Structure formats: structure tokens, C-alpha cells
């Protein structure tokens, strides 16, 4: 099954739903059940080009996971790999699902605003909301911005039921977010996913109308990993290469150096170590802002380096 860390998935099906949009159906390579996931969850695939995160459009322990990938000309070529190279039957490693974009349990209404491929978490949301039994049913409204050539594709994906407020708008240009947001009843939560410019415009319109931050949610895959760097352990006299998706602590342990640690999540302080040279990038929850600013201490379990080399008193 799974070891809690990674899933081994097999591509059961890969279909072009529209030019540049590929839908993948992934199942467990050994045919076992997969972990369930809440709507809005994503998984991170390990591809030859690097790691890419994709929202799960659907997640069923037995039927498997579905995602839709837009072919873009991004820097490392992950989506190009998925479109041009990945084939049915291929096996890939993935993380278990993780959710940083969940529906809020206290919403009286969910307002969903998506642009282009940002439709993917919305598909997961509306599938869940449609299935909710009557006493728990929370009303929703969805607005999808799409390129004119793609409106029919998104209408087919969203498959609006009679009476649902599901709207596809042609043209990713001007959309009057202000008018839409001004009409929302108290208790509405807003979820947006799509191009950064669109999400920024939605957030700005909400702020201008006095929406509190607690009611505005933006798709987020979380920041993990970063640029590779060199770690020099002054006492041990060795240099270690810390890879893009490896924590400093894992790199130190892999090099056979004994480093105390406990929570491995930046909260307990046990792994704290003095910095002799270089500029740490702090991602912990333990150091005070003064300690961070002094750059004299770092928590290797979660933090990284801003400088090409970081020297620790270890």
C-alpha cells in the first residue's frame, strides 16, 4: 500500500479533453486502495523534470484520482512531459494528498471564481457540494472565466444542473468582480483559483468592499523545497549538497552526521544550531524575530539558505 510518504501510481487513462488540456486518471500501481482526499486537495508528482503539484478533480480510494493538466511553456517542462511523453501504463511516484484550499465549515454560501485551469479545484468543490445530504447542503455560485475558444469545454466539465448558479464567461479580460461581490450575503466565503493577475483582482475587489481576510481563500500548494545550496559543517569538516526537495536535516543525516532533532516541523527547538556564515532562510515557528534577523541560529529541519553556502557549527 503506502508507507505514509509516497504513493506509486499508474496512469490508467490519459485523454485530451480540449487542445492543451489533458485529463489523467491515476490508480495505485499495485491495485490497492488509495488514500481518500477532501475537495481542494492536491498531490505532487515526481517527474523526470522535477516535482509538480496538481489539484485532484476527483479522489476515490478504489476508482483512483483524476486531474486535468494544462500544457504550458513553464520553466522545467513538467506539464509538457505530461502532455507529450507520459503514457497510459506509466508508473509515477506521488505524495499523499494534502489540502491547503479547503471549503470553510461555517460558510452560509460558497462563491467560487475560477479562471482557465483554475477550474480544477472548483470541480472537486461542486462535486462535493452537490453530494451533500439535505440538512448540510450549503448553496454555492460559480463563475468560470474562459478563453472564447474554450467556453464549451468548461461548460461540459462543469455540467450545470437545472437551477444551479454556474456561469461560464467568455474572455479572460474584464469581469466586474465588484458587482458580483457586492451582492453576496453575509456569511459568504469566496474561493478563487486561476492566473495570479485574476486572483489578485478578485482579492482587491473583495478588500475594497470590506470583505474580511478570513472569508477570502486562494488556491495554494504550499512552499516546500527551494534552491539547492551547499551546507558546510564546520566541526565535522565536510561539505554537503542540499538538494532542491531535501531538508537540511535530511541532508545532514544522510551524510552520517548525528544531529539532534524531535518534531521535525520547526516548532520544538531541539534541532536549533548556530550559523557561522551565510544567510539562513527561516521557515520555522520557534525563533523570535530578533533571532531571525541576527541570522545566528537556524532550524535545519525546515529552514533553508538564501546564500549559496551556509556554514553551521556542527
Amino acid at each position, binding site marked *: 500500500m503506502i508507507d505514509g510518504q509516497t504513493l506509486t501510481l499508474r496512469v490508467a487513462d490519459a485523454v485530451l479533453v480540449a487542445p492543451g488540456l489533458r485529463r489523467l486518471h491515476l490508480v495505485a500501481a499495485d491495485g490497492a486502495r488509495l488514500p481518500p482526499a477532501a475537495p481542494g486537495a492536491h498531490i505532487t508528482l515526481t517527474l523526470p523534470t522535477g516535482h509538480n503539484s496538481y489539484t485532484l478533480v476527483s479522489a476515490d480510494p478504489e476508482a483512483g484520482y483524476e486531474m486535468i493538466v494544462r500544457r504550458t511553456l513553464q520553466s522545467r517542462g513538467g506539464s509538457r512531459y505530461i502532455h507529450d511523453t507520459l503514457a497510459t501504463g506509466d508508473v509515477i511516484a506521488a505524495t499523499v494528498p494534502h489540502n491547503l484550499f479547503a471549503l470553510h465549515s461555517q460558510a452560509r454560501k460558497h462563491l467560487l471564481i475560477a479562471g482557465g485551469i483554475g477550474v480544477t479545484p472548483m470541480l472537486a468543490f461542486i462535486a462535493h457540494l452537490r453530494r451533500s445530504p439535505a440538512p448540510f447542503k450549503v448553496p454555492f455560485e460559480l463563475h468560470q472565466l474562459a478563453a472564447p475558444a474554450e467556453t464549451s469545454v468548461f461548460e461540459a466539465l462543469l455540467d450545470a444542473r437545472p437551477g444551479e448558479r454556474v456561469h461560464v464567461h467568455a474572455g479572460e479580460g474584464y469581469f466586474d468582480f465588484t458587482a458580483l461581490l457586492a451582492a453576496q450575503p*453575509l456569511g*459568504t466565503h469566496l474561493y478563487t483559483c486561476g492566473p495570479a493577475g485574476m486572483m489578485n483582482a478578485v482579492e482587491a475587489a473583495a478588500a475594497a468592499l*470590506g470583505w474580511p481576510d478570513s472569508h477570502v481563500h486562494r488556491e495554494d500548494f504550499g512552499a516546500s523545497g527551494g534552491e539547492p545550496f551547499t551546507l558546510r559543517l564546520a566541526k565535522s569538516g565536510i561539505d554537503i549538497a542540499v538538494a532542491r526537495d531535501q531538508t537540511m536535516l535530511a541532508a545532514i543525516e544522510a551524510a552520517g552526521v548525528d544531529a539532534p532533532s524531535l518534531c521535525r516541523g520547526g516548532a520544538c527547538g531541539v534541532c536549533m544550531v548556530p550559523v557561522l556564515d551565510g544567510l539562513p532562510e527561516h521557515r520555522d515557528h520557534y525563533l523570535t524575530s530578533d533571532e531571525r534577523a541576527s541570522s545566528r541560529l537556524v532550524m535545519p529541519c525546515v529552514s533553508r539558505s538564501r546564500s549559496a553556502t551556509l556554514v553551521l557549527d556542527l
Partner: protein
Amino acid sequence: MTAVPASNRPRYAPIAPDPRARAQLLVMDHDCPGDGAFAPGVNLADFPERWGIVAHALVLPEPLAGAGVKSFRSSAHLLALLAHRLAAETMGLRLYVVGSEPFVWDVARVATEAGMGRDEMQLFAMGRPVRRVSCVHCRHINPGVTTTLVTCAGCGVTLTVRDHFSRAHNTWMGVQCDAEAPGELPAVEDLIA
């Protein structure tokens, strides 16, 4: 370092209107706030819409929404109409509440039921501490408690009023104070804000 009491009691900050809000509503359990309820430089005129309680019945019903000063006959009267008002409201409202501690959390509950989050409200409790104390043994709620010990009207036990507050239920926790040594009671003191 100043000692922080082992307690989850709410801490209240003097109220200042949120400049980002689309609309503001000030709700008070009297017809004016007491001293210290507002931040320096803030006064009543900064809240064009204000609800207060005048505690008599000679109050004419008025439209719920819109600027102006509205008076209500009692706390129950105000809370019932607040629920109606919020049900018709749109996003962007901030709610400011000034009054006794039980009152402000009653208002907060109505607002929470309407889907408002804690960051859409500012609460300021004032006056002598008066608490609703929930007896953990018999679940009776003893209102109007102003001392550290109270005899439960439900089961007769002498309760110590623990400094543990439920915002959802708007009650403080009461636990038998002499369970370890029956009859051995500490001195009664007034509650301190």
C-alpha cells in the same frame, strides 16, 4: 515578564472603526457607551448607525437598516431584530458591541449564527464583572454571578467560578470548590475584571 494568569478569559481592546469596512453597526446595551470603550480619538459620531437599549416599552418600531440611532426595549428585543437585520445584510459589515460581558457575547452568538467571523466583530465588555456560571455537575446555568464562589441553584453545591470561559455558550465554568475536603471553603471575593 508580567505573569499571564492561567485563564482563557477574553481580552477586550477599545473599539476603533475598521476603515476597510463597507458598513459599520454599533450595538450597545445602554443608549451610550461607557468611558474607555472607544480608542483615543474615536467617538459616537464615527458610527452613523447605532443600536441601543432604552429599557422601556415606549419605543416605536423603525426600519432595521440604514443610518441613524435606533432604540430597543430590551436585550432580547435587540437580539431578535439583529438576527433579522443580519439575514438581509451583504458582506462588508463590521459589528461593534459595547456592554456587559454576557450581553456582548449574546450579540456575538447572533452574529456567528449569521456566518460572521471573529474578524468582522469588535467586542468591548465593561462594567462590574457579571458572569453566567454553568455548573459542570448538574448543567444548571447560574446567572448574575459577581463573586468567586456561588451556590448552585440547581444542585446546591458551592461552586468555585473557574477562570475558564466558553464563548460559544457564553458561560463560565463552575466546579465544586470543596470536593477534596467537604466543608473547607476559601474566602469569597468579588470577581475582578
